[in-house]
């Protein structure tokens, strides 16, 4: 008799493992699914209170020269030890700046006079290593500054300005994008409102109330449509009125309206629609 109470459980562990694996998979998929989920851009309403910052990029073509000089000094004294560190940091800043460097050069055309300086620096630079360090640390130039330090400081300043300019430009671009989005959203809003209105008109024109409809019923139907406006399947009644004849009449009106009007802008199309009927009200 005992065996009737202890039923064999073949594959118990296998199924447990499988279950665990499945849950892990689901959780993983859920996590990544959330990560992937891209939200449609929300309409942003922006009030323009002042003119946008003008973004007139100053144009200068001089840049190559100074940079070439800055680079040249270090390699000479210590080709070997510095090579590994010095070349690397410098190329890196360049590409970053390169995009916007043209803008910067203008404010500082005075660099040309210091041309002779590199030569002096070369002489003074018995130890090449100090050079990279000051460049990094010298955000704020200290009182006793060598010419090289000054130059580096200027260069630093320039880099900073470039960065700021870049940030500003980016902000301007962002603002522009937002304004564009807002204008776009406004026109989308109009297009959607127009679409909704035309759908409403068409369905209304097909609605025949059953005799003896009384009170102020509200019916909510949910439906899906294709981009062609065709209604997929049967509209689903969400709220119950208890008036079967009325519900059927409304369902019939919806179906008869297929295909629904298409939006003028495809972007405002929505496949999931909620129809809220107030058959005894006249707007």
């Amino acid at each position, binding site marked *: 008799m005992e065996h009737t109470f202890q039923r064999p459980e073949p594959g118990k562990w296998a199924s447990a493992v499988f279950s665990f694996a499945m849950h892990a998979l689901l959780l993983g998929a859920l996590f990544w699914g959330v990560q992937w989920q891209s939200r449609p851009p929300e309409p942003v309403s922006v009030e323009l209170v002042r003119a946008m910052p003008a973004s007139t990029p100053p144009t200068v073509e001089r840049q190559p020269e100074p940079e070439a000089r800055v680079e040249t000094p270090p390699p000479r004294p210590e080709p070997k030890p510095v090579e590994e560190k010095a070349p690397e940091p410098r190329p890196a800043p360049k590409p970053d700046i390169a995009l916007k460097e043209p803008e910067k050069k203008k404010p500082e055309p005075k660099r040309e006079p210091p041309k002779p300086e590199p030569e002096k620096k070369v002489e003074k630079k018995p130890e090449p290593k100090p050079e990279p360090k000051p460049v990094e640390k010298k955000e704020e130039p200290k009182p006793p500054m060598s010419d090289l330090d000054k130059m580096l400081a200027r260069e630093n300043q320039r880099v900073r300005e470039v960065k700021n300019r870049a940030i500003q430009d980016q902000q301007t671009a962002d603002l522009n994008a937002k304004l564009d989005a807002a204008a776009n959203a406004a026109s989308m809003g109009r297009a959607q409102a127009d679409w909704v209105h035309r759908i409403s008109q068409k369905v209304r024109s097909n609605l025949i109330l059953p005799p003896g409809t009384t009170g102020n019923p509200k019916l909510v139907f949910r439906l899906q449509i294709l981009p062609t406006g065709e209604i997929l399947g049967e509209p689903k009644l969400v709220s119950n009125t208890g008036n079967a004849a009325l519900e059927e009449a409304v369902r019939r009106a919806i179906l008869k309206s297929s295909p629904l009007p298409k939006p003028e802008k495809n972007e405002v199309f929505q496949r999931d629609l909620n129809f*809220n009927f107030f058959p005894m009200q006249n707007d």
Partner: protein
Amino acid sequence: MKVFRHAFALLAALSCLLLGLPASAQLNVEIYGAGADRIPITIADFGDESAMQGDDKLTGIIRKDLELSGMFRMISQGTLPAVEGTVPDYAAWRGQGADALVVGSLSRNPNGMVDVRFRLYDVTRTSELLSLKLSVAANQKRALAHHIANKIYEKLVGQPGIFATRIAYVEKVGNRYQLLVADFDGENAVPALLSAEPIMSPTWSPDGKQIAYVSFEKKKPIVYVATLATGRRITLANYKGSNSAPAWSPDGRRLALTLTKDGLSQIYIVNADGSGLRRLTSSNGIDTEPRWSPDGSSIYFTSDRGGSPQIYRASVDNGNAQRLSFAGAYNVTPRISPDGKTLVYVSRNNGRFQITMMDLASQQTQVLTDSDRDESPSFAPDGRTILYATEVGGRGVLSVVSTDGRTRYRLNNRAGDVREPTWGPFEK
């Protein structure tokens, strides 16, 4: 099980995410009111309609029935083929403007009966809604047509049709009176009673098998109850003075009526076999024209106890009455709708006697007719169609109006003076 449900919910959520269906992305569309009031329908000619006897066409009667309801608009068949048993070209019918299509065929069978097949198609949904096959006698054309019209109405409107119900009315031809029972459209009238003296106030029993009425055949008004199938009748009330205005209780076991045996006209209640008489109202005015409420608890009637004829409602238990009509100096002949929510009656407006409707909940009234001498309103069992008598050129005629104003027509097929119409119940 819990785990399974959990897993299922998770799976559902997952599939939503993977399919990129945000649950909240629904566009709301508000739709106010209704823009149409008639269902466009095509009733195609049936195959071999000559199988039925009589001149008018079967499909002609079906079309007329549906049109009288005010709920349908006939769309011509045009050149489209409509053969029973063949799937219709839905797109073509839709293009022609029809929401629904009826096709059918008739054929004589060896027994002398007529086999009828008909189908109702939903053009919008491209599906068959109804398919029926029956055998009828060749002279049952009108009954068959009304039956088919009912089926169509029920399917498309979602409520029972009244096409197979009957009406009764009194016709005076020369010096003779007859109580006629006819189809709802006034056709096919059959005399149930002939008399050289006036007949008044016919009312149907709730089961449609009997009619109570007042006859002057003994030179005074006496209330009788006649069984239609057998012609047998009993005397319900023959008391001193006037016996009039019978009305059935919803269960058919009692009747209310007006007697003058104690002086002024008052309302009494009596069992359907004439026994158990008891007085309901005790006023110092004239109380008459009782009608039972659908729930059987109260009785609507006319009384001039307040100085002018107005409509009152009394409890069946104790006769305590409450006045319902206040507008105007003349409101008589109350008739309550089958759902108990609407009252219609005759009111005098600027010297014109017209059918008026009152929503009992809101006390709002609305004049339904535009004639001068309306009387005897009677609700059809659908609760929206009202039959009444009016006068045209000094002759009584029957008219119909619906509470929603969708339909309004006259039954003008009788040569005589027609009065006192009453609409029967749904056929059982």
